[in-house]
């Protein structure tokens, strides 16, 4: 079970004349829930975007499921992209589509499923993220912040991904909603056996969800291990990051 879902080697990224990553290595095994933490501007979101092929590194390689993202064959590239789902920080729901159509969109793009099956799948995904069928006809503009995240999560889950990437999943949610959202992701992880990579600033989210933590600092992955291992490390950034109100309570 030690197959790497994500494998980053010697990644260098240069943005606006400054090095964001220099010699970054990262391995994420199947079934892990990895939190990517780091200071503001440390390149967490940039790394996440490079993992999903939205940004290109200046040097180095990124492989998902053992395959490079940039494939000369568009069919293979698309097939690889269907194996992961992304939850963008602000949801990135299609504003012209209803909740139903947002979730149905990737399924229809497959051109494989009939409309009845899609309908049942959409209702199932909605139920999975604890939304009601009556929410299906709503437009994204009519949703609250927490609901936008749930719908976006349902859309990310639409094509049965093996890998789920979350950018700041609980940013902008109040503590109650953020705890509920974390619980939801955790439940989905258990039910579907997903590999989850998420970027966060929130220590509560981190402690509740992550099985492993990757610390991004000094332009590379400074440390990668379980939360207990990380917090005992003696490094100024890690001390500062985990110092305020650290709840030394592992995820298990």
């Amino acid at each position, binding site marked *: 079970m030690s197959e790497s879902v994500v494998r980053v080697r010697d990644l260098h990224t240069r943005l606006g004349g400054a090095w964001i990553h220099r010699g970054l290595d990262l391995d994420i095994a199947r079934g892990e829930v990895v939190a990517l933490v780091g200071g503001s501007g440390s390149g967490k979101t940039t790394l996440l975007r490079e993992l999903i092929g939205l940004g290109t590194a200046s040097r180095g390689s990124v492989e998902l499921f053992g395959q490079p993202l940039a494939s000369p064959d568009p069919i293979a590239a698309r097939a690889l992209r269907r194996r992961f789902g992304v939850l963008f920080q602000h949801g990135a729901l*299609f*504003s*012209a589509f209803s909740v139903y159509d947002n979730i149905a969109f990737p399924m229809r793009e*497959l051109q*494989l*499923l009939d409309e*009845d*099956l899609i*309908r*049942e*799948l959409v*209702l*199932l*995904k909605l*139920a*999975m993220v604890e939304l009601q069928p009556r929410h299906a006809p709503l*437009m*994204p*503009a009519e949703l609250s912040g927490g609901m936008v995240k749930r719908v976006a999560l349902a859309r990310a889950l639409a*094509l*049965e991904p093996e890998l789920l990437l979350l950018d700041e999943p609980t940013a902008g949610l109040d503590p109650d909603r953020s705890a509920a959202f974390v619980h939801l992701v955790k439940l989905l992880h258990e*039910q*579907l056996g997903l590999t989850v990579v998420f970027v966060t600033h929130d220590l509560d989210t981190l402690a509740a969800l992550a099985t492993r933590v990757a610390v991004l600092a000094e332009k590379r992955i400074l440390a990668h291990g379980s939360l207990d291992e990380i917090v005992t490390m003696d490094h100024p950034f890690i001390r500062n990051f985990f110092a305020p109100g650290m709840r030394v309570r592992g995820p298990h």
Partner: protein
Amino acid sequence: MLVSASIQMLNVPGEGEALAKVAGAWTLAGLSADMPRLLAELRSAAASASAWNLDDLQALDSVGAIMLWRAWGYHLPAQISMDGATRAWFERLERYGVGPRAVPPPESPLAPLMRLGGRVLAFGRQLVDVAWLLGQLALDVLHLARHPSDIPFAETSANVYKAGVQAMPVTALVGFLIGVVLSYLSALQLSNFGADQYIVNILGIGIVRELGPLLVAVLVAGRSGSAMTAQLGVMRVTEEIDALAAMGISRTLRLVLPKVAALVLAMPLLVVWTSTVALFGGMLAAQVQLDLDMGFFVATLPRVVPSVNLYIGAVKGVVFGLIIALTACHFGLRVRPNTESLAANTTTSVVAAITLVIFADSLIAIATRGVGILR
């Protein structure tokens, strides 16, 4: 390595029962290779099988689970053998209430009438909105008359520059070309009658009074009207208009009024500019085609085109500018926070502005039919 999905009918000897054996990876990836065949096989298996065996199932996701669930008629078959994780899937489906589609209620026979009524009401609401916008603008002007320090000079001047000065090259180019075309076409007809010199009358009246204002209006509606609608629309989408309102700044005063004022100021000037360039184009073409001296053209023009035509053209510019800016702002403020609405309102804004301009143009033409034309 996962084996792709399969379904197999086994006849249990002696008991006369058919056992359906489901095996492989019933996931989106595993099913996608041969979806239609599997669906057909599943349907026929569901019709004949009395017992199900899912022990060799290697993987299951919601697509596979729902396909099986649907084939079973949304409940578990009486005789089924499967492991706990698979059972958990179907229990979840049952808990989430995944079931057949509810039949939509039949459409009322009055539905077309109701749709028509809805459209009429929507149109009525738009008229109310326009009236509200006009009223608010009037109040704003009154307010500014009493508090001149609130006049948004900077915004107005920025809009005059964007909608007026920056439109000069394109209106000049289009005006010049239309002048040339008009002159060529008229010259061919006129020379048949030996009435060459009347080209000055035709171009003068036609361009100054009619074509100049209309050309500018169409160009400005397409160029600035759409930009205004899109700008206000995006400001609505990003809640910038709400932010302004929260700061106690009137959106009509700061956003709508400067646009209206700018177009009312800039349009007559653009009309004069475009008409001049178009006349120049016509004059050049007349020189080439009819060998009509430019000095003669310039000397004859004020004689055959009374100066009141220039005023009519300028007034048309003011009216058209008012129509374009108001239409653009009206539709901009109607944009709802989604991309579809932004696109639809921008299109409608330009189409409505041009239609209204031509409508107003015909009204003005009828009202001024006895003015400024030599008989």
